[in-house]
């Protein structure tokens, strides 16, 4: 076996915002593998590349770190992998340490800390083009001589911007032997900068100018509201037609495949109503996930996301959260799944968990069909207080009820938590950058992959299980009621009826709740099935209006404010927290809240006489 067949193992380290991931993308292109480090939820990214001379490299993108001896889970991993102490990771042959050439006062300290590990290393001064534009001059030779390691300049966002680095990798890089030096690292950094760096201005003028508007107490908030409004408009106006197209397309495909199986009705039903319905219910989430993440990634890359967190931190802190929780929670109004996936940008694990736990209380778009059905059937079209539409007021109060309960739950979680130590904000506001298309595309690809592979499998299997429950056993000969009433789901619904009778739910609602586990909006079409009205949802509204009481409808609305039965959300929580415990906690507390809220609503409404 030739030596070239054994790839050299490189580890990419650097402080947050040094452009490390962009450099990783530049070197490896699309050849990346994303997983988690063994036993933790920290993301592990590895890629391959080869240099023009044919040498192969395996590049590991370690989590960003400000320091190697701090206690955050990310930084512990970075330290242990660099030293070869992390179980299951072999020690890297070479460390590529990345520093932002415009931010050396902060990043050089980390470089010195990595150098003290005594491993072979290279320093990449990234964003060297931006440094040059700002008139920052770095004496690379002097820096190299003082540090005793090779120093190269890179521009991660420009094609060929890593050429100097790959040339250097082909050379012979040895371990640095650092003489025991007790001088404080900050003092060493100051000396290095005084010797090798000349900087006309501490910050970029353009950053100062943008921040004067973006962080302005009034203008900044107006701008933030405008950006959020734009995102919401985009999600609803772009994602809705795509979601509809996916649903129709998959359904047609299923029917087409199913038509080949007419001789075997059971298999046909499995394929059409189980497998294809399952694939459809997985894919239907993709448009919202991709569009939301397109915006979130663009905002993150540009440097705006931490600014939004700055503006809103005080507000969120009141509820025991952090400014970083805002975007994930806002995304949850479209769908809790991308919202929960977006919590990765929250550094404090406690804040992240609280945000995940309350995300499903934001009224997601899947609840709208249920709200629409009940509001249209029971709430009269009437103008209140001169200008407001009563139906609109009810819909709005359902949203507010979700938000208020989310804040209350966050507050209770804060009370119950044993670890009362102070939560930190301590957030860097990086320089503004124009987002790079390649980096955003790779980021979107990663999110889609994670969702389809890790969450999609769970959703698909659950849909098939639910199909099984609603199909077997088949109705007896001469049955008069819809088939679902005789199935396991139907029987389960009748059992559930005992539990839900105090909430005013009739057995039809209880049966519809079972397939509604797959996705909340499915409850509406299931109700139509139970009332033997398949495909006639307009008819459903008339039945509901004539056969249900107002108290029942209000009770079901209250139930859906909390709606604990979205299995897709629970599957995402499982994936993002790597823990079944959190899944159970979430399901249990949502169920309890929903039950109590519906019970109170129903009993009070009946007492008042509706």
């Amino acid at each position, binding site marked *: 076996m030739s030596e070239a067949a054994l790839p050299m193992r490189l580890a990419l380290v650097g402080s947050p915002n040094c452009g490390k991931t962009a450099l990783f993308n530049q070197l490896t292109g699309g050849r990346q593998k994303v997983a988690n480090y063994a036993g933790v939820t920290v993301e592990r990214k590895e890629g391959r590349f080869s240099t023009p001379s044919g040498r192969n490299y395996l590049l590991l993108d370690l989590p960003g770190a400000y320091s190697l001896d701090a206690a955050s889970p990310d930084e512990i991993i970075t330290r242990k992998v660099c030293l070869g102490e992390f179980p299951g990771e072999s020690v890297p042959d070479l460390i590529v340490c990345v520093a932002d050439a415009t931010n050396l006062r902060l990043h050089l*300290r980390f470089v010195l800390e990595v150098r003290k590990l005594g491993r072979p290393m290279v320093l990449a001064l990234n964003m060297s083009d931006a440094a040059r534009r700002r008139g920052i001059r770095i004496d690379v030779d002097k820096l190299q001589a003082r540090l005793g390691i090779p120093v190269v300049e890179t521009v991660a966002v420009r094609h060929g911007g890593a050429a100097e680095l790959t040339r250097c990798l082909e050379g012979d890089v040895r371990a640095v032997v650092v003489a025991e030096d007790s001088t404080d690292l900050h003092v060493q950094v100051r000396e290095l900068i005084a010797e090798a760096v000349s900087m006309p201005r501490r910050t970029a003028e353009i950053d100062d100018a943008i921040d004067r508007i973006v962080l302005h107490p009034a203008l900044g908030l107006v701008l933030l509201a405008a950006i959020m409004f734009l995102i919401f408009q985009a999600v609803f106006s772009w994602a809705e037609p795509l979601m509809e197209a996916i649903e129709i397309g998959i359904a047609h495909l299923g029917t087409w495949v199913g038509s080949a199986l007419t001789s075997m009705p059971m298999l046909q039903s499995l394929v059409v109503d189980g497998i294809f319905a399952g694939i459809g219910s997985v894919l239907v989430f993709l448009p919202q996930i991709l569009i939301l993440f397109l915006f979130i990634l663009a905002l993150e890359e540009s440097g705006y996301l931490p600014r939004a967190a700055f503006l809103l931190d005080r507000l969120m802190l009141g509820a025991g959260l952090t400014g970083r929780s805002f975007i994930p929670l806002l995304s949850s109004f479209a769908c809790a799944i991308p919202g929960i996936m977006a919590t990765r940008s929250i550094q404090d694990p406690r804040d992240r968990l609280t945000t995940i736990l309350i995300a499903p209380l934001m009224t997601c778009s899947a609840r709208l069909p249920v709200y629409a059905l009940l509001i249209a059937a029971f709430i009269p079209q009437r103008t209140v207080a001169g200008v407001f539409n009563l139906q609109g007021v009810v819909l709005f109060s359902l949203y507010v009820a979700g938000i208020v309960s989310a804040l209350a739950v966050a507050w209770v979680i804060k009370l119950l938590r044993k670890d009362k130590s102070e939560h930190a904000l301590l957030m860097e506001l990086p320089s503004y950058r124009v987002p790079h298309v390649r980096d955003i595309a790779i980021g979107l690809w990663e999110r889609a992959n994670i969702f389809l592979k890790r969450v999609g499998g769970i959703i698909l299997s659950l849909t098939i299980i639910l199909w099984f429950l609603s199909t077997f056993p088949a109705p007896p000969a001469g049955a008069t009621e819809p088939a679902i009433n005789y199935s396991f789901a139907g029987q389960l619904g009748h059992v559930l009826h005992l539990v839900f009778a105090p909430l005013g739910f009739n057995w039809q609602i209880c049966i519809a709740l079972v397939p509604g586990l797959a996705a909340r909006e499915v409850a509406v079409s299931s109700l139509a099935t139970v009332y033997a009205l398949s495909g006639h949802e307009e008819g459903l509204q008339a039945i509901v209006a004539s056969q249900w009481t107002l108290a029942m409808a209000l009770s079901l609305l209250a139930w859906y404010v909390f709606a604990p039965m979205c299995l897709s959300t629970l599957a995402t929580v499982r994936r993002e927290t790597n823990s079944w415990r959190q899944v159970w906690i979430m399901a249990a507390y949502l169920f309890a809240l929903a039950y109590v809220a519906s019970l109170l609503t129903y009993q009070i409404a009946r007492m008042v006489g509706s």
Partner: protein
Amino acid sequence: MRLSELVQGLSAVVQEVEDLTEKDPISRRLRDFGFVSGEPVRLVGRGPIGADPLLVQVGYTRFALRRNEAARIIIGEPA
């Protein structure tokens, strides 16, 4: 005086960062960020609600610090 008391737009020099607890992780992170003795800092701005958090420049970087985080940083007289 403390960084949390600095007037917006003024600069001062850091004297030290206090530990509120033993091995205070927040103070340690502040030192990692460059809030160390002799380093000039400037209060660039404040958040829109309750003038919190603070926008602070140290070195070539800007950080958002909550008031109680900034209160750990002892500074000299503003210049």
